[in-house]
């Protein structure tokens, strides 16, 4: 029986000719990631376990992004603990304020993950790198500690669900609309424990940022990983950037899938996930023009803080103003995205429109800081979760959407179809 793309990467890293779904394996890791929230717990476990060395100081990445620049004294202490550990063990890929960006935008950009990589990260959105043809999955801090010590992790080989994407998406349809549509269709546990493998002739219309966004939210369907086959779009991004040895794996023709969905991208509409689960997806056509009044719009995060996301938002906001009573917060995901956005004049567009532009941070996405919601407030946001209390007060509401929808909504003050803005 053939193997899926995910299974092939796992087999290669476990020195096995083949693996099958359900098999427990131990595999060698190419990258072990942690952030300022999860690394302190991992470091405590590492120290309590009596470890005195890391397996490879070039294959560990630590990114201070969640509550950094430090939001309070406790956050500062956590970053300080990670900084001391990184210095002590000479961790080469330690990223602090000035170099850091949101981890899942930063690692691909720095070439630390690429085609064929096997990566674990103590952050659930580590599944993002599947966009580059890597097997990449989120784990906890103890797994991170064990990975830092041994360079290995155990995996139960996942079965897979196949998503065949066909057709050309219409204007304003981005990767975010694709993944919100899929989660709406299969539910927040629709791919529980499984791989989501994407294929089809529609992939050629999805740029690398769209794919990173789609793979990023695989976890929101409960998936172990999301993965794209490597093609010219991937190679254009990773060639000359990826520091490892790129290896391309493709699913066998007779690979087994538990389910297969065909999605016609040309039929997708701008999609919004209503509180309090990402599966509560509705298209803009199902939302009344003044149905959802917003207090805040957030454009950023590991899901949608990349340059094409900012371009999409700026295109709509150019020459327009953020509606009265709306706070619009734009957060470029990395220093490099920030700089590029500055050079392209996007930051000027945002600031002239009345938005603010922040240094890279996860900040408000997880209710950390830089845009916390009060009781009863609503935000439309390009982030990835809309759970109860996710961005602040337990009685606040989060609506997930694409950068184009978030920007259009910031301008009107209500959740709005970007196409409606053009017609004005």
């Amino acid at each position, binding site marked *: 029986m053939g193997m899926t793309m995910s299974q092939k990467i796992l087999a290669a890293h476990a020195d096995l000719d083949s693996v099958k779904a359900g098999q*427990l394996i131990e595999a060698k890791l190419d990258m072990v990631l942690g952030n300022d*929230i*999860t690394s*302190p*717990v991992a470091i*405590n*476990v590492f120290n*309590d*376990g*009596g*470890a005195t060395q890391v397996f490879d100081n070039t294959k560990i990445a630590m990114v201070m992004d*969640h*509550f950094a620049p430090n*939001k*309070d004294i*406790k*956050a500062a202490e*956590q970053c300080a603990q990670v900084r001391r550990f990184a210095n002590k063990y000479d961790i080469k890929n330690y990223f602090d304020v000035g170099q850091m960006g949101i981890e899942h935008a930063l690692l691909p950009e720095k070439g630390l993950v690429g085609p064929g990589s096997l990566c674990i*990260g*103590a*952050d*659930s959105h*580590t599944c993002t790198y599947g966009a580059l043809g890597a097997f990449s999955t*989120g*784990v*906890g*801090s*103890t*797994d991170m*500690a*064990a990975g830092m*010590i*041994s360079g290995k992790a*155990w995996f139960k080989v996942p079965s897979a669900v196949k998503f065949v994407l066909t057709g050309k998406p219409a204007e304003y349809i981005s990767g975010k609309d694709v993944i919100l549509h899929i989660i709406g269709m299969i539910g*927040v*546990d629709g791919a*529980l*424990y499984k791989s989501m493998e994407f294929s089809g002739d529609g992939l050629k219309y999805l740029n690398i940022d769209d794919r990173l966004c789609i793979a990023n939210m695989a*976890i929101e369907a*409960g998936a*172990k990983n999301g993965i794209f086959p490597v093609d010219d779009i991937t190679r254009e991004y990773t060639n000359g950037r990826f520091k490892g040895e790129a290896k391309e794996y493709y699913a066998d023709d007779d690979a087994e899938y538990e389910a297969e969905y065909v999605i016609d991208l040309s039929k997708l509409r701008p999609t919004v996930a209503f509180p309090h*689960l990402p599966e509560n997806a509705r298209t803009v056509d199902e939302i009344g023009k003044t149905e959802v009044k917003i207090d805040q719009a957030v454009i950023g995060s590991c899901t949608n803080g990349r340059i094409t996301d900012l371009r999409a938002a700026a295109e709509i906001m150019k020459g327009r103003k953020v509606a009265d009573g709306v706070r619009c917060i734009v957060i470029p995901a990395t220093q490099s995205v920030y700089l590029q956005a500055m050079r392209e004049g996007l930051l000027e567009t945002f600031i002239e429109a009345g938005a603010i532009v922040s240094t890279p941070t996860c900040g408000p996405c*997880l*209710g*950390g800081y830089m845009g916390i919601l009060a009781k009863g407030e609503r935000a439309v946001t390009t982030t990835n*979760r809309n*759970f*109860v*209390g*996710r961005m602040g007060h*337990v009685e606040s509401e989060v609506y997930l959407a694409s950068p184009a929808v978030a920007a259009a909504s910031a301008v009107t003050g209500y959740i709005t179809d970007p196409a409606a803005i053009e017609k004005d």
Partner: protein
Amino acid sequence: MKAQGTVHKYGDNVDTDVIIPARYLNTSSHSELASHCMEDIDIDFTKRVKEGDIMVAEKNFGCGSSREHAPIAIKASGISCVIASTFARIFYRNAINIGLPILECEAASKEIKSGDEVSVDFDTGIITDITTGKIYQAEPFPPFIQSIIADGGLINHVTKK
């Protein structure tokens, strides 16, 4: 190994943001995390919970973030075992890795009610609702995971080799 206690019951998709809200992730202190456990969906949980109590929920328990702070907060609050229909995969790994016993059992997760007295035998996977007298059989762990638990968690398992 056995556990017995009073049940705290929850529904589907209990996410890690409600188990331990991110605003408290500026600490890794187990007791501090425990003091905010479940507060966004069950404000009185920390007042009601007693050492040895059992948490029962329905499908996809622990979905969302990879924060190990979530099983840590539950364990440090005194909960001896979590029973659910299904667990989100990262929470499942984390619970095993830190030594919080969890069991998947759909019938038990649907029928057991808040306040029931329940006992769990981890060796056999048998769950007994003492209040109703009903007995349930949970899925046993595969041997590999049992070996991690027997070694006292993942780090002991890794460093033993």
